[in-house]
């Protein structure tokens, strides 16, 4: 490369500094909105004790539920008659499609709620912007999804796979709240596409019914 080219390349990089993923001016950054969300999550105990304890209860229920699930599995596998039943039910618990281990009631209920929310999504968006309570619910489910991913349950490869797909979809749903762009219809199509391609709703329903079936 000649010196002239090198100068030109530097000029290109300078141009990139002005144009590539150019951040908005500081006055246009949503810093207050971000802070509101940070404050709720980082300072919640002092400000919103009721809400925090509610999440603590949910988290505790999940942890206890997971413990019961593990204990059930241990007990079940130690009994010959139950072991036979496990072999029979194995095909519906494929690693790529759903949980490989029995779910606890709280996780089952949460998966059912997620399926219900996603089933209601098209109706919500047909009338325009999804209802605030709908988005709030999606946000709560997203948080629970991430809690589960970080919990011991997230180590189950089948459940983790399902939760990661669900997280991806829920993130898109939650993003619908903020963006009022003309591309909303396309965004909805993308969400629908993600749901269809990964069979998210059928897998959620199957996983949610696992507990009832095994019960």
């Amino acid at each position, binding site marked *: 490369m000649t010196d002239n*080219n090198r100068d030109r*390349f530097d000029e290109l990089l*300078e*141009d990139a500094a002005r144009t590539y993923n150019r*951040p908005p001016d500081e006055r246009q950054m949503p810093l207050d909105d971000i*802070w509101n969300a940070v*404050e709720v999550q980082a300072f919640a105990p002092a400000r919103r004790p009721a809400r925090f304890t509610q999440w603590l209860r949910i988290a505790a229920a999940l942890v206890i539920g997971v413990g019961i699930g593990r204990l059930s599995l241990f007990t079940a596998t130690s009994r010959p008659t139950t072991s036979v039943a496990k072999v029979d039910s194995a095909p519906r618990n494929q690693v790529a499609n759903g949980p490989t281990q029995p779910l606890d009631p709280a996780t089952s209920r949460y998966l059912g709620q997620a399926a219900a929310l996603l089933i209601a999504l098209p109706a919500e968006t047909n009338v325009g912007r999804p209802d605030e309570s709908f988005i709030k619910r999606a946000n709560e489910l997203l948080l629970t999804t991430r809690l589960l991913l970080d919990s011991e349950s997230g180590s189950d490869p089948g459940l983790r796979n399902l939760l990661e797909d669900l997280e991806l979809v829920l993130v898109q749903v939650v993003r619908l709240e903020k963006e009022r762009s003309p591309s909303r219809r396309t965004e909805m199509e993308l969400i629908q596409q993600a749901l269809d391609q990964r069979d998210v709703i059928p897998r959620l329903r199957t996983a949610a019914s696992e507990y009832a079936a095994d019960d």
Partner: protein
Amino acid sequence: MTRTAFALQTTPKVNEPELIARVLAGDRLAGRELYDAHAPRVFRLAYRLTGDAELAREFTQDTFVRAFHRLADFRGDAAFSTWIHRITVTVVANAMRKVRRLRERETDLTDLDSAHPASGKDGSRRIDPDLRERLAKAIDALPEIYRTTLIMHDLEGYTHTEIAAVLGVAEGTCKSRLSAARAQLRAALADFAKEYES
């Protein structure tokens, strides 16, 4: 090279150790002050790395939530700005691996004109839009460690010392990564070389 100059040494003059102590005691106002001092640069870096306002918002939020939750672990060995930028880069890198799957489906939606608007306000030589787009795609295609280094140094004006501290590597490593990144960009634009000379 002219830089945007948003380097770490521009940290606002606040008594950070005191602020941090207050935050650890649960003082939300101190938290807000600490946030105000660093959020614009964190958002700016997250935006540069993602090219998406909503992702930049989400990752900035995640960065500060994590920072406040782990504040007790911050010992002050490095500057707070270095520490929080390190969290930012980690948050963005981890999350973008997931987002990339989504991005592949969203490619058709990308409005390159709005993402890379025309420049020239400062009277610099006009850049061919095709060349600009080619460069943008070449930057996007860089390996993550090269891309982060290039964006921080050439686009955001961080020094090698700052980048090395944020990424936890030696300065020499940082320099060699930048050199490799530039070499890859030049290679990607090689067939435009004749246009350079014209």
